[in-house]
């Protein structure tokens, strides 16, 4: 079974810095593999160990995105595809078009694994867009997967229910974080990862026929909410009474 897994080199939200006007310094911001994308890689590796085959990691991003691809290779993916594009475009149409085009070039896939959402610009749109573009079936928010040669069965985690489904292959699947516990690569695996093949494709070569719908970023500013940050001290009973008092004074509880 040929499995592709889409990993994003996401902005590390914890490391993000701001200029004095409150605008985030996106250019040059530290990145890391999307937290849930590790679950997608883990799911791909488990499929391979059950039914055999190859796991190909695919990323769309700037030069830095190579780091996340390497991490997927260190976890156990066999080879990588790096679509070199401008980073941080916030445009799922473009990202999905590039992923679909590069997957068509990279081989015949039975399964394309993604995560439910990217950790920096969570939208959950890229995986179903890739499915629609490739004409594959799609199963979103899978928390359990069972793959045979001809179909995939999955348990989907929806807001109000758990749904079990069967889908023909090829299919795009997005997984939720409770699907598995991602493995940590060993030092040896990390060293070996740099010997695994990575194909680099330029975005403009994949989408030569024309771009995708543009998304322009108008403004970006830091959310800030000022909080009082008052610690209520004393014994447990004293602190609890102080809190109840304070909340009554604020008028936010009516008891």
């Amino acid at each position, binding site marked *: 079974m040929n499995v592709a897994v889409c990993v994003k080199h996401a902005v590390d939200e914890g490391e993000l810095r701001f200029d004095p006007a409150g605008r985030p310094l996106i250019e040059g911001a530290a990145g890391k593999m999307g937290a849930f994308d590790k679950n997608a890689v883990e799911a791909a590796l488990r499929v391979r160990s059950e039914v055999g085959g190859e796991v190909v990691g695919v990323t769309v991003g700037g030069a830095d995105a190579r780091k996340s691809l390497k991490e997927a290779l260190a976890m156990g993916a066999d080879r990588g595809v790096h679509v070199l594009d401008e980073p941080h475009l916030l445009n799922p149409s473009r990202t999905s078009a590039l992923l679909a085009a590069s997957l068509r070039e990279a081989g015949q896939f039975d399964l394309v694994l993604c995560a439910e959402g990217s950790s*920096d610009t969570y939208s959950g749109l890229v995986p179903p867009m890739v499915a629609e573009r490739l004409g594959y079936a799609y199963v979103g928010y899978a928390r359990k997967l069972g793959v045979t040669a001809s179909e995939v069965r999955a348990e989907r985690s929806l*807001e109000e229910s*758990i749904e079990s489904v069967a889908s023909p292959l090829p299919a795009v699947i997005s997984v*939720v974080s409770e699907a598995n516990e991602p493995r940590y690569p060993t030092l040896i695996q990390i060293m070996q990862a740099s010997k695994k093949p990575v194909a680099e494709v330029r975005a403009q070569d994949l989408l030569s026929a024309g771009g995708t719908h543009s*998304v322009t970023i108008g403004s970006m500013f830091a959310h800030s909410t000022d909080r009082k940050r008052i610690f209520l001290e004393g014994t*447990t009973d004293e602190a609890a009474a102080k809190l109840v008092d304070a909340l009554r004074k604020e008028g936010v509880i009516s*008891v």
Partner: protein
Amino acid sequence: MTGDVWSFSENAAVASEVALAAEGLAPAVQGGPVVVEVGRARDGVRGGGERLVLQGCPQDGPAEALAECISRAAKSLGPAIILVGATREGREVAARLAVKLDVGCLPEASRISSDGKTVSAERSVYAGRVSATLTSPLPCVVTVRPGSFAKSTGATGTVRNYDAGTPEVRVRRLGSSRRETGSVDLKSAKVIVSAGRGVKRKEDLPMLEGLASEMKGALGCSRPLSSDLGWLSEEHHIGLTGVVVKPDLYLAVGISGQLQHIAGMKDSKVVAAVNTDRDAPIFQASDYGIVGDLYQVVPALRKALSARH
């Protein structure tokens, strides 16, 4: 360009919110708001303007079929903007629609405006640390973050039936079970007591539920409690990947306050937190904090609430 503004959600409550967003946006594109319903118009869905009822399509999805039906209607009727509630099913509907119609897509909008040529949507990115305004030319699909708009109270206008045919579906549903842990409407709760990993066992949740109900509030939780442990349904899950809430009081109990959680409650009026760790980030995002063991502090709070004053 001119055209109507369509709104759709497979979830009836969210559909009324998205309908309100469409009502607000329609004048900018010199069109009317249209509530799109699949199979039949649902009683619980409010929204001013036309009801476009798509015949032929299975009423309860799946998303693949919903997207195909809506796209068929859109190709012949040409709406300027299609708003879709950003639920787990809705995101698939929106994504497929945008590709089928070959139009742009703006995700997770909490505010939307248009100048008649483009549509702009405000959304939060980078785990809620940043608010971004994104713009795309019309026509465009926009996914709308549930909880961002109030529910429309608009009256139903004309009903228009459209035969969208019966699309082919590849993914078969084998079964569906409602989550055992019940549902809750956090969006309308004035007080939310929210439980985190500091709670050791599922059996301890009634203690927090008791505190919540004594404050006339509801119980919410961090992602691990619903998603990983399954102690509460996903409707309780607050944050980036769950619901966004803005109660008068948000009381975080045993929650560390990671960015993704804060993203869902930062607009609460007053935030209070109970945590054993004085350095937990939740205290930075709180008005009032008690450093202590929730197993002692929660009973003490309940006692203090019942004390005469």
